[in-house]
């Protein structure tokens, strides 16, 4: 069975021609107003006027470049191309992530990664990846479809414990680990970014629910919003 399921291997030294896909720089200029999924929540004003101390701090890292990268780990031309374009390897250990400066990659599944880069770099990085990678792969820009929330503070973990059945204890969830799991009644890509800080990648249409949920779950610890 494994033979049937394994995608065809592509020799690293003979990358196929770059696939014929539609490319599109989705970014407009500064004159065109871009709104993150939580734009209407006006987190900036809440940050200014809201409480400054509390057990949980929430910050939206908005309008970043989100690229879904799909490819087989058996495809050396794909892995090597990613290394060449990014300057580091895609993390192949399950549930791991790599952070290099302002670029970070999350392992999502054996053939899927989520790369997050500064918003204005998304198209360039996509082009560099496409140029460098060979064989069968896919890259999808999902920058408009999701956003990053950072949850930090001494009670951040308690909020996570209310929200996900996954074990977020130190022993099971060290810094750098990433898990895609149930989050309240939606889902999130959860990554531990520091001793007391966690990153949630939330889908756009669910962002409002996640924001309401997080406010509610944080209420007893005190929620600080950072702009």
């Amino acid at each position, binding site marked *: 069975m494994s033979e049937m399921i394994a995608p065809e291997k592509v020799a690293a030294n003979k990358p196929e021609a770059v696939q014929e*896909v539609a490319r599109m720089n989705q970014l407009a200029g500064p004159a*065109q107003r871009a709104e993150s999924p939580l734009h209407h929540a006006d987190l900036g004003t809440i940050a200014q006027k809201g409480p400054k101390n509390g057990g949980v701090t929430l910050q939206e890292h908005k309008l970043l470049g989100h690229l879904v990268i799909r490819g087989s780990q058996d495809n050396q031309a794909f892995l090597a191309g990613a290394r060449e374009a990014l300057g580091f390897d895609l993390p192949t250990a399950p549930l791991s992530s790599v952070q290099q400066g302002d670029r970070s990659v999350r392992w999502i599944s054996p053939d899927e990664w989520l790369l997050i880069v500064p918003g204005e770099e998304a198209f360039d990085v996509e082009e560099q990846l496409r140029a460098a990678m060979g064989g069968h792969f896919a890259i999808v820009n999902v920058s408009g479809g999701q956003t990053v929330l950072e949850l930090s503070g001494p009670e951040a973990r308690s909020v996570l414990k*209310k929200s996900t059945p996954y074990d977020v204890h130190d022993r099971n969830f060290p810094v750098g680990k990433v898990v895609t799991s149930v989050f309240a009644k939606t889902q999130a890509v959860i990554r531990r970014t520091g001793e007391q800080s966690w990153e949630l990648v939330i889908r756009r*249409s669910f962002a409002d629910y996640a924001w309401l949920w997080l406010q509610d779950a944080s209420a007893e610890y005190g929620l600080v919003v950072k702009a």
Partner: protein
Amino acid sequence: MSQKNRLASGGRIDRSKPLRFKYNGREYQGYQGDTLASALLANGVDVIGRSFKYSRPRGIVAAGAEEPNAVLQLGATEATQVPNVRATQQELFGGLVSSATNGWPNADMDLMSYVGKVGGRMMPPGFYYKTFMYPQSMWETYEKFIRKAAGLGRSPLENDPDTYDKINHHCDVMIVGAGPAGLAAALVAARSGARVILADEQNEFGGSLLHSREKINGRPAANWVAETVAELEKHPEVLLLPRSTVNGYHDHNFLTIHQRCTDHVADQAPKGQVRQRMHRVRANWVVLATGAHERPLVYGNNDVPGCMVASAVSTYINRYGVVPGNELVLMTTNDYAYQTALDWADAGRKVVAIVDTRQNPKGARIEEARKRGLNVITGSAVIEVQGSKRVSGVSVAPIDARGDKVTGSVQRLSCDTVASSGGWSPVIHLSCHTGSRPEWRDDIIGFVPGKTVQRQLTAGGINGTYSLRKVLEEGARTGAQAAESAGFADAAKGIALPLSEEVQEGPAMALFHIPHTKPTARAPKQFVDFQNDVTASGIELATREGFESIEHVKRYTAMGFGTDQGKLGNINGMAIAAKSLNQTIPQTGTTIFRPNYTPITFGAIAGRDCGELFDVKRYSAMHRWHVEHGALFEDVGNWKRPWYFPKAGESMQDALDRECKATRESVGILDASTLGKIDIQGKDAREFLARVYTNAWAKLGVGKCRYGLMCGEDGMVFDDGVTSCLAENHFLMTTTTGGAARVLEWLELYHQTEWPEMEVYFNTVTDQWATMTISGPNSRKLLAELTDIDLDGDSFKFMDWRQGKVAGVPARVFRISFTGELSYEINVQANYGLYVWEKLFEHGAKFNLTPYGTETMHVLRAEKGFIIAGQDTDGSVTPIDLGMSWCVSNNKPFSYIGKRGMAREDCNRPNRKQLVGLKAKDPKKVIPEGSQAVDDPKQPLPMKMLGHVTSSYYSANLGHSIAMGMIRDGHNRMGETVYYPQADGSVIEAEICSPIFLDPKGERQNV
């Protein structure tokens, strides 16, 4: 009222903190540390309710979760009403308001007691079972009677103001019960470094040690408890959960724990605090240290207030400083219960007699009782109690060695309290939750947990281990074993076992049902299950009527059906059934227990999944604009989609008429962002499409779009949408809003299981693109003002797509139409969705750009006969039934999903229901959706139905109503008349026609 039963000193209550509370409208005083039950007993409140069936006065029997009678209603306000609260588990707080639940008008003066005997006759054992055999029409009558008579509390009529929530935990060792075994286990496990959770239903840890007079390491046991808890609190990986009942033990060591966080503080949780919390624990290993419940004995009139379980009496004395009476008669089958008489005597009250059912008991506690001059009557039993609202005396008689019959003359003793002990029943409920069958042990006269498939250990009373010394030993050993099994080596090393003295005890007697001079059926009522008024004679009757399985006996008598799940009575009941059937108890077997161990509030079950957070609401990037412009919303899946945009004073139909006309006459705009969108990349993408859609995809060129139908294996339509060729190896598929996730899973399923060799990746981009559809004759003019794309009709044709900029934002524009008008579907990255939407309106004013919602969309598409998968289809409709054979290609080199299904005989038989258009003869009449067509409205019932209306609207553009629906053989019946009988008796007459009501040649969309 003074606390006449309160001792001047002793107990774990704080006499410096008096608390006032109300019970049945009267004010009482108790102390910090009391339960509601101990405070009521301190005040001499004997009657706390009336029994379910016979309306007999009932008092407090026990001191914990096993209490069957003291089930009260709590709440100072309407909104904070809580039914089903056990007074023995409710901590007292100042201002607590409580009332009896099944005493009407009050428990003391119960008018029901006069009809009580009638009730008893009306509800013989088997009532529950027999009611289902009577005509169903009678059930309502019975139900009313039962509900009123039972009255186990009422739910509040107002919203609960409190917050309840849930939290998840994982641990290496989960210990249930913080008595001596649980504490010892926790201590050892904690020292190993394991992640430990220790939960106990009581406000304080210590379990039986909180009312024990035994010593540990030569000092009062409470000292050891305090030191142990103090150490546990210091371990960073230990979570201590007091006031937390482990209510369910589920598969894979998943446990649900109900914590009462502020129920002991006030009627309503302090601001910002959670009232109750459900802990959802996934444990590597579980240690059940749930202890045991003492069994009362079954004797005549054993439900008269003042009859209690022996250990409960000790608990009230030692833990709460309350002696619940003045003159005690203790009846016991074992040594341990002698302690109750000793405690009673120590409290300075009179022990009338210790009645021991054994002929010649010997043991340290018996020696002590005799040494202190207490009257020990052996080989005898209390066969009957006198009194109604309080015990006034007992009848004591000698019994034979087996406890089968009375052997001598009866003597009367005067007393006000009867404590009884028939031994102990291990608390095996949680173990039963996992499906484990309990095992009977003759040596401890009780059931212990049976074999388990869980990673579960047990320690202490649950194993029938009752000597404190052994309980501590077993706890420590089990804690070590659990920690080691969870990977913490050497947990067992260097355990300093707490030491306590071993009390020498003689054997106990296996006696459950005390014989009477009269046969059971004629003796005074001998209660087995207090909450459901099940008597020994009822159980005997059940076995006489042929109910031999214990599960049948349970259902026949309702034994164990109460909210206490028969914690006190079940074993006695089984023993009585066994004896009556001439079987052993293990032969008779036991009923098993299901979650929850004790009742849980609905609030705790709901947690935060209520109100605004009840369910996910999904929003598009333009949602704020819709709200600001007065849209009403419709739920589509989890999405909130604009339904229509009424202007001031407009009815729904007014708004729809305006939106429809504006779109057909100038230009309308729809937020179509919610449509599912799937990005498909890879060299086999095109072939994959050909296999999942019914139509052909081989020749679709880059820059082109095509409509497709998706079928299940059975050949039935399940989704549809337009897929566009973005590049040779790159497609964008759209799905229905509700079908997005299902379609993506469908594609993945086939890719991963059937065609893994195909090089293709699917990714959801539903949230990535904001999609706005401008539709109508002026849509080109409007778009031209904002885009650099060449919109010329000869180059950018219907079913083409182009990339360019709209309002300066990179966009893909698809010339596809769900309205039959010239339409452009503009897709931009969702971050720019609202910006581009607003720009369209800035330029759209001169074209009367009109926003419309799902309802107008439905009307406009129905005018064109376009289907909505899931509305016009229901899983039983093939593309051919829809009249869409143009969308099925059987010339594809590879098969496609649904091809074989469609070839089935049934899919090709004549007379299938087919989708047609319907025109009501009265153009103003809109046939209600779901209406059934018949050929002859005058035929007798049941009429022969031809099919139902799937879509039906009033079309302002056409000036008459339109509908689509299924009609048997409909495609061959064009022009014929069918009738739609309505619920009100009227009949709507309609003509079968083509579903394309407007522009059948498609001239409007092809301009």
